[in-house]
């Protein structure tokens, strides 16, 4: 193996490039963007909402099986943006981990603990050559017993942060700019405002109005703490409310 520029291997496995970068991790981020789907998450005063596009590439596909929004436990949800296959692996492992946690410790896995576990797993893939990083950005939502509504985002590099609002995917940066303006004065959104901010952010960034069947919406609310995927009727209500507002 010749040295110099890492012998060209720095682009194939997660070893350092001469500039101290990990190309494989950066390419994993590109894979998330290339999926062509944008997702948004917004945290309100007593609820969290995540929204993503539902792209069904073929009319013959069963639409109900196309989803990127997964319940991990009754109380925790995960929205995956990026490579669907990697997302399903991650969800499977997360579900297992959350169930074991509940069994081992006797209480539900908190949001930040799950986010940290996912991020630590992602870090292992950036350091060990035998596994590539996953091409998924995961948004975890749930209600924490002490801290209230929580929204975490975990990326292929192993970073994880709590967010007031965030985005991932193709139009991530535009969405974040939009959300920064909306969240500038630390507004305390009600449940309806949270959902409508998330949906209208997606609409504004993609510059199209959606039908209820073209997006997926997931929420957790302080009152019952359960993770719920909204039905098309419920989504329609919010879409109508947004268009009447504008």
């Amino acid at each position, binding site marked *: *193996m010749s*040295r*110099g520029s*890492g012998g060209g*291997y720095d682009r194939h*496995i*997660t*070893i*350092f*490039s*001469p*500039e*101290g*970068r*990990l190309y494989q991790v950066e390419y994993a981020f590109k894979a998330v963007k290339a999926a062509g789907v944008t997702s948004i998450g917004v*945290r309100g005063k007593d609820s969290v909402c995540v929204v993503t596009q539902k792209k069904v590439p073929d009319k013959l596909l069963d639409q109900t099986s196309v989803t990127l929004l997964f319940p991990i436990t009754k109380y925790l949800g995960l929205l995956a943006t990026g490579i669907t296959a990697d997302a399903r692996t991650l969800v499977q492992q997360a579900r297992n981990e959350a169930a074991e946690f509940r069994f081992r410790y006797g209480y539900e896995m908190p949001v*930040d603990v799950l986010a*940290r576990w996912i*991020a*630590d797993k*992602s*870090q*292992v893939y*950036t*350091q*060990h*050559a*035998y596994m590539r990083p996953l091409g998924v950005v995961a948004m975890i939502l749930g209600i924490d017993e002490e801290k209230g509504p929580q929204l*975490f985002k975990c990326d292929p*590099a*192993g*970073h994880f*942060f*709590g*967010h*007031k*609002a*965030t985005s991932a995917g193709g139009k991530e940066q535009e969405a*974040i700019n939009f*959300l*920064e303006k909306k*969240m*500038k004065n630390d507004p305390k959104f009600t449940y309806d405002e949270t959902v409508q901010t998330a949906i209208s952010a997606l609409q504004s960034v993609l510059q199209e109005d959606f039908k209820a069947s073209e997006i997926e919406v997931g929420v957790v609310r302080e009152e019952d703490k359960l993770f719920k995927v909204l039905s098309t009727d419920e989504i329609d209500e919010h879409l109508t409310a947004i268009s009447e507002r504008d």
Partner: protein
Amino acid sequence: MGDSQYSFSLTTFSPSGKLVQIEHALTAVGSGQTSLGIKAVNGVVIATEKKLPSILVDETSVQKIQSLTPNIGVVYSGMGPDSRVLVRKSRKQAEQYYRLYKEPIPVTQLVRETATVMQEFTQSGGVRPFGVSLLVAGYDDKGPQLYQVDPSGSYFSWKASAMGKNVSNAKAFLEKRYTEDMELDDAVHTAILTLKEGFEGQISGKNIEIGVIDSKRIFKVLSPSEVEDYLQEVE
């Protein structure tokens, strides 16, 4: 560790005798956010910039300075995810020491064991070196101590040190300002002034983190309001 397919080391010698992966890891550290540490006569202070990628990030969910034991704290420059691995391993090693000897682990020993882990990742099969340098601050029977550990696994004891983006300016500033008889409060002020030197934007209690340990031997991360108080004193 790792798959048997990768039972060869990824960090190998170049013809000139250098370990280039380690050098690249140091480059990764050098592009990380600035952090520094100062040893005073009655304690140690470590501090770091806490620049978050967006105002949408909840800064209370992020804590860069962590405690390894009640009397030892650590800060890093470089890749955050890598530092979490080292913090976890170090905490476990400290607990194992306590279980065996029923005594808190001396700072030098914890530093040595952490450095050993980092060295192993430069030689083991199928893994890359850690992209972080650590500043370990502790207070034990030998008094206040400050150690820096690099991706290669080498470590040194420092009176004051800095790492990350602004390292050369920060170190020059520290060399001028450091005195052997500095007290902890002065050290905190000096730390803040050093961070301020290379700081882009408005420094506040929300975008820096400070950790201190004094003769009471309890490592503490200052709250944003406590940091603000020190910032006012420095103005």
